[in-house]
């Protein structure tokens, strides 16, 4: 499951950044990948739709959110946590 989450998150981020998946490394920040604030919002919608989850994210104050976007690895970890929490018993 976790490998699937990682692959899918990288696919979504690569698509938003218009990069090859191989260019999206786990330690990269969104800023370094060229994804701006609106690009982040689009990525979060894509993540919500791909995993059928709700992401607790405050677009106006990203750093205040429970959703950690400090790196690709952090996002993957956060999505894994949300999938586990919101798909309990599924």
């Amino acid at each position, binding site marked *: 499951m976790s490998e699937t989450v990682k692959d899918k998150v990288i696919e979504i981020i690569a698509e938003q950044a218009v990069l090859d998946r191989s260019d999206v490394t786990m330690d990269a920040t969104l800023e370094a990948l060229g*994804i701006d604030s609106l690009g982040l919002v689009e990525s979060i919608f894509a993540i919500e739709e791909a995993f059928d989850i709700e992401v607790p994210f405050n677009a106006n104050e990203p750093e205040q959110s429970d959703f950690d976007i400090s790196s690709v690895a952090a996002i993957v970890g956060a999505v894994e946590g949300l999938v586990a929490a919101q798909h309990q018993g599924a």
Partner: protein
Amino acid sequence: MSRPVADHSIADIAAALGAAYEGNGALRLIGAAEPAHASRDQLALAMDPRYADELQHGQARAAVLWEGADWRAFGLEAAIFVARPRYAMAGLTAHLAPPRAIARGVHPQACVDASALIGPGAAIGPFVVIGPGARIGANVRIASHVSIGANAVIGVDALILDGVRIGHDVRIGDRFVAQPNAVIGGDGFSFVTPEPGAVEAVRRSLGDTGGATQSAYARIHSLGAVSIGDDVEIGANACIDRGTVADTVIGRGTKIDNLVQVGHNVRVGEDCLLCGQTGIAGSTRLGNRVVLGGQVGVTDHLIIGDDVIAGAGTLLRTNQANGRVMLGNPAMPMAASVESYKALRRLPRLLARLGAERGATASQNNNRLSNRGETD
């Protein structure tokens, strides 16, 4: 409808289209018309069975018809058959269009700098101004009131219509077409504040100025020009701004409609279609074969991949991967946009139902309270 054009034989027209004909190939016609309005000397354009009825009412002796049509049943003497009617229109109209009335040579009232080079066969109309060092290719036709800046280069066979402005140092490929009053090579809309301003803060935070305000603007001058590939067409009153350092680029084969705005440093790929009133903000890159419907907006510094299609009125505010088909504002993949719109339309009914349920619950509670009041 009829225009003073040379006459053409059915066989010649069919050959120009690469299409088959049946009947009298020697029949000569002067131009084309819609089936119901065609005279005896006009070619009726009836490429779809739904025109069959109109064809009966016109006077045409020959027509362009859909494949397999029974031309004799329409009382015609000859017919040309095409497989893809819209595409056939390209060849047909090219064959029948009257030549533009711009006399060969340089009109005595044109002002051409002595150092400008004009290719053989060029036709330059009155009140045209061509600056020093400009190079105009062979067989270029330039209508009246066009201005072409210093050192601009224009390839062969261009058709530049009335009032077009081409700035200095702009480079344009072969077979360029510019509709009246297009402006290529105005300065970019580029200004900067001495300190980081509110716009930069708002952009980063999605809404918070952080107390920053805008201040007086310093002008960033445009050192670059515009570079346009072969076979590009630019619509009336469209504007392509100069680049800041490098050129703004329009790729080969791209067609740009009326009133389109292409900002400074934009790079448009090959074979793109930009429909009327579309605007592309500075430094955005479009891939190849991108199609933007009417009134599409694209914000600055984005990457729009190859083969992206955006429906009319779409506002692209984020990068788009290759092949995406987008719609709406905010732009969404077309299927998601339609689904979201359906949900939006259902929202009032949903809210009304929620309100009704809440009202029912509230009145039940009220009844309970008042009942209690009575019993107490």
